[in-house]
């Protein structure tokens, strides 16, 4: 009489580990060497460069975890599926010290690593292009000056003003001139002062890796340094009403001399047209209720007559 002995169980753990290590290594190599150079938002600025690096590191960290979950799922479906005619339940599991310890240690290491890496990467590149509020704790190095000229590593100040549904940009170092175009000099530290005239918007200069909420009466500061010439897409990334989807325009990074020429030209034109005099004095929050002209007597401008009017307060607009 012969007896049939059941085949010994294969070493599932070892199998899973070997498959996982091969797949994880392949995925990480592909992410780092193939995908990383093409990851958004590119490396047009220091903040974008850091964000691209951060996303690549997070992807390399996360890919082995994702692969393990999917691998275990597929392995279970294929190897441990019920055989035809087998309606029995599986054996109960009462705990496994090795599995539990591995899980706790593994997840702890991953979370602590992400915490340390994230903090370093937020502090190092001066907020990594994100809005830091009116009093940033991580600042960008640069010479502070009331005027700007090429070649001096002078910090360029740009006020970003959102309103339903368009962006404008104000340059306090050029007489407070304002433009519908975002122009920036290359290799220059830039401070954005992001604010709004009405509802909450969000300034998202995609290729620069800069994103900062635009809140009324708030100066939200963000930093970057553009490292390459080219075009920048500016979008609103906070749902702000009917034309939110159309609230975008384009900016340009140009060389420092070209920027100085452009900015001086716009300043001169707005000065001669009287636009500069018509704007409120530059302030870190754009307060349009400061209208020194209102209340003046009936006057004329360019031959067109009018009379004193009043401003609609944001909270209580009324129709005349």
């Amino acid at each position, binding site marked *: 009489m012969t007896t049939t002995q059941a085949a010994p169980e294969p070493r599932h753990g070892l199998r899973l580990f070997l498959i996982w290590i091969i797949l994880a290594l392949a995925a990480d190599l592909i992410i780092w060497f193939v995908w990383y150079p093409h990851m958004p938002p590119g490396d047009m600025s220091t903040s974008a460069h850091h964000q691209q690096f951060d996303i690549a590191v997070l992807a390399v960290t996360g890919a082995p975890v994702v692969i393990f979950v999917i691998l275990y799922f597929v392995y279970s479906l294929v190897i441990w599926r019920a055989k035809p005619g087998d309606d029995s339940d599986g054996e109960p599991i009462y705990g496994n010290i090795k599995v539990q310890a591995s899980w706790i240690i593994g997840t702890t290491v991953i979370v602590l690593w992400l915490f340390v890496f994230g903090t370093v990467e937020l502090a190092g590149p001066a907020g990594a292009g994100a809005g830091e509020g009116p009093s940033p704790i991580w600042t960008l190095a640069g010479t502070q000056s009331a005027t700007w000229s090429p070649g001096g590593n002078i910090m360029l100040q740009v006020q970003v003003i959102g309103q339903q549904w368009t962006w404008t940009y104000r340059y306090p170092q050029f007489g407070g001139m304002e433009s519908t175009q975002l122009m920036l000099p290359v290799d220059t530290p830039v401070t954005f002062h992001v604010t709004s005239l009405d509802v909450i918007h969000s300034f998202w200069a995609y290729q620069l890796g800069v994103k900062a909420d635009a809140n009324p009466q708030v100066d939200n500061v963000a930093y970057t340094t553009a490292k390459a010439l080219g075009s920048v897409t500016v979008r609103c990334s906070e749902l702000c009403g009917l034309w939110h989807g159309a609230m975008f325009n384009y900016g340009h990074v140009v060389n420092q001399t070209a920027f100085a020429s452009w900015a001086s030209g716009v300043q001169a034109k707005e000065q001669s047209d009287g636009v500069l005099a018509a704007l409120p004095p530059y302030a870190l929050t754009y307060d349009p209720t400061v209208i020194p002209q209102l209340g003046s007597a009936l006057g004329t*401008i360019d031959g*067109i007559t009018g009379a004193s009017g009043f401003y609609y307060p944001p909270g209580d607009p009324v129709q005349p």
Partner: protein
Amino acid sequence: MIAYDPCAPLVKKRGGDPVSVAARAASLLVAFLVVVGLGIFVALYYIGGQSSLPTIHYAASGGQVNVVLQEDPQNNSSSKPDWVSYYVQDPSNNQWVHTTLFSVPAHTKVNVTIYGYDGCTPLRNNFFSQVQGTMGNTVTVSQFDQHGKEYVTDQTTSVINSWANCNVGHTFAIPGMNLYVPVASPNAQLSANNLCSSSPCTPSGNPYAKETFSFMSPVHGGDFRWQCLVPCGGGFLDGNGGPMATIGYMSGFMNVVSS
């Protein structure tokens, strides 16, 4: 308390006859198709549906096209008669149509005339007092009193300061073309007691401003949204709700038709 017995036979699964794999798959497929179908219906019906607003078509003559608009302190709709609104003049019969949709040919000089019947409102950002994107970056303004007397004649300017003298009723802005035009209002004191009260407004008995400017339409076709930048939605948050956020009142589309 029931003790665990490793030698006990495995428990059979409970339940009746299992539903076949094919039936389950078919049920899932049907449920999936229903959900997707509902999504497509909502998207097509509510979002992509045909607008009920008419589009006024302007044809070029001699390489130019003449677009005529007016902005009123109210409108003749039955649902929102107290909302400020633009009107577009139909060139085929010179009738004013309550719409903000119009089309122009591509790569054509567009001559715009806007009749401003509404009173003045300061801009939230006075930067838009500056005329931008028109030919010469200027507009030409005339103003009339309620008796038809022209008290300002064809003044060409690059700035209409909405804060200094309250001269701006609304704006006509096409941000996608970098076109920003402040639209003059009639004299504020004249407006105070004599503002047009029945739309579409006519020059008879009403003070108004007439503003003209030109720009080149884009080379390629497409829809260009336009809006007013004055917070003129009275009674709404920041003045930008209501008519400001409703197509057919203070915002609309310029459809550029390529040949």
